[in-house]
């Protein structure tokens, strides 16, 4: 199968970058394996470039609905015990998280 002009070469540094974006602490060993696997997969999916879709409207949804709204009415919230029950760490009825490095966006 001929490579399309989009055929990617996914390097380990590409994988490291993707892993960072996706908050995955991928190990060095995994980097190589993933790089190989992703390269193959991306090579296969790059086939989509072979079709002439210049005049085609993208389809993001199988359902042709528009304007689905709900009225501005208050509904009961979850009881706080339920909200916090599954939390890894709680303090003062809030979710406790370790120190945050990045500033608010």
């Amino acid at each position, binding site marked *: 199968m001929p490579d399309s002009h989009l055929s990617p070469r996914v390097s380990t540094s590409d994988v490291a970058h*993707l892993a960072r974006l996706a908050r995955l602490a991928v190990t060095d060993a995994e980097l190589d394996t993933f790089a190989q696997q992703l390269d193959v*997969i991306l090579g296969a999916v790059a086939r989509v470039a072979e079709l002439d879709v210049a005049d085609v409207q993208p389809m993001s949804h199988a359902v042709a609905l528009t304007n689905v709204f709900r009225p501005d009415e208050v509904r009961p919230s979850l009881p706080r015990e339920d909200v916090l029950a599954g*939390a890894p760490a709680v303090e003062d009825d809030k979710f406790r998280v370790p120190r945050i490095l990045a500033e608010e966006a």
Partner: protein
Amino acid sequence: MTDLIRLTAAETAAKVATGEVSAVEVAQAHLDRIAEVDGGEHGGVHAFLHVDTDGALAAAKAIDGKRAAGEELGPLAGVPLAMKDVVVTRGLPTTSGSKILQGWIPPYDATITTRIKDAGIVMLGKTNMDEFAMGSSTENSAYGPTRNPWDQTKIPGGSSGGSSAAVAAFEAPLSIGTDTGGSIRQPAAVTGIVGHKPTYGAVSRYGLIAFSSSLDQAGPFARTVLDTALLYEAIAGHDPLDSTSLDVPVAPVVAAAREGANGDLAGVKVGVIRELGGEGYEPGVTAAFEAAVATLKGLGAEIVEVSCHSFDYALAAYYLIAPSECSSNLARFDAVRYGLRVGDDGNNSLEDVMSLTREAGFGPEVKRRIMIGTYALSSGYYDAYYGQAQKVRRLIADDFNKAFAQVDVLVSPTAPTVAFGIGEVLDPLTMYKNDLATLPASLAGVPAISVPAGLSEGLPVGLQIIAPTLQDDRCFKVAAAFESASPFPEIPS
């Protein structure tokens, strides 16, 4: 007494309604069966991740109480059901087959969970699945594989392998799965039962742990077409909590199944899709499929060959769209509000804890798809990958429309192979090819059902019947007709 676990759902409901058997007896019989065959991570069918003995018996008792009080019971009241663990169930552990949700007890019910409970259906427990519904063999479960009841060295299909195996193993007459690229149909095919992927939007997604928002649909599994139809009607219908759910009447699939059972397909045009066959499909599968087509013809259907060229690109488009959507849907698993938290040692930052948690909590297939999705949505790549895939999706939908202008239903083998060995397929891309025949219908959002169509090398083969959008009843009519003429192979037990 008839072996309760061999009854169909319809038969069970009828006996419960008359009082011939109690719902508690029925539930107990199935719980006993689970104890007998299900085993666990290291042996047995291992369809279940969690069996809710107390809850099931309590629900069954409530049904018996209602009956005794003369209250009207629904058409499936007292019938046991197994629920795929991707569906949120209040108070019952819900893992989505992943370590990252180990121990999570949801504080709310999915809409379909509520509807199932309201129908008086008795939920026995939660079933095993490929992690976050990503896979075709249930080998990606973080909790060990499920084994095909036909041959426990073989996979039961995926991602709804647990739900499918549970029904095939007579652990429940009904189960719920979800189908994103074939995850109901392919397991149904390789375990020899019926499984239906509804029209996208026909069944609420509220409470389905999301994999790919524009593709996910919950659907029914059962051993007969009628049972599958009955469960469909119990769960389908508009839900204001799901903005993508269709506000239309539920398709009359039960009536269609009953009508189809008379085996008359005169006037029905059946299209055989050229692209969903041939290279990549096992000869035994092809042979079984051809026999199935001949059966349909024998019932009066007119067989037409159709070509849908874009279907050759369905796999490529799907493996861009689904990972893209899941890379975003799975971002919420961040160790903050629920689920696993790893590395919170007082030194690590939150960013580190998030990354360590996701690394530990997600399996390799999930990580691969998250990274592919992240790549495909990246600025600079979006147009060529995700954007392009959406256009290919339009071509696939158009090809279906063109085909349905000529024929009433389309058919193909459900899967290119029969069940393969657990541990046999290690290469991701090879695994993806299990979805070759099921992907097009997923991308277009059209309804598709898989029915047992004979055996190949002693293992089940499925016939896929696809109908136009919203015409789920057409799938059931043709499926029921086929069932009447080609009885489903008996599942060994």
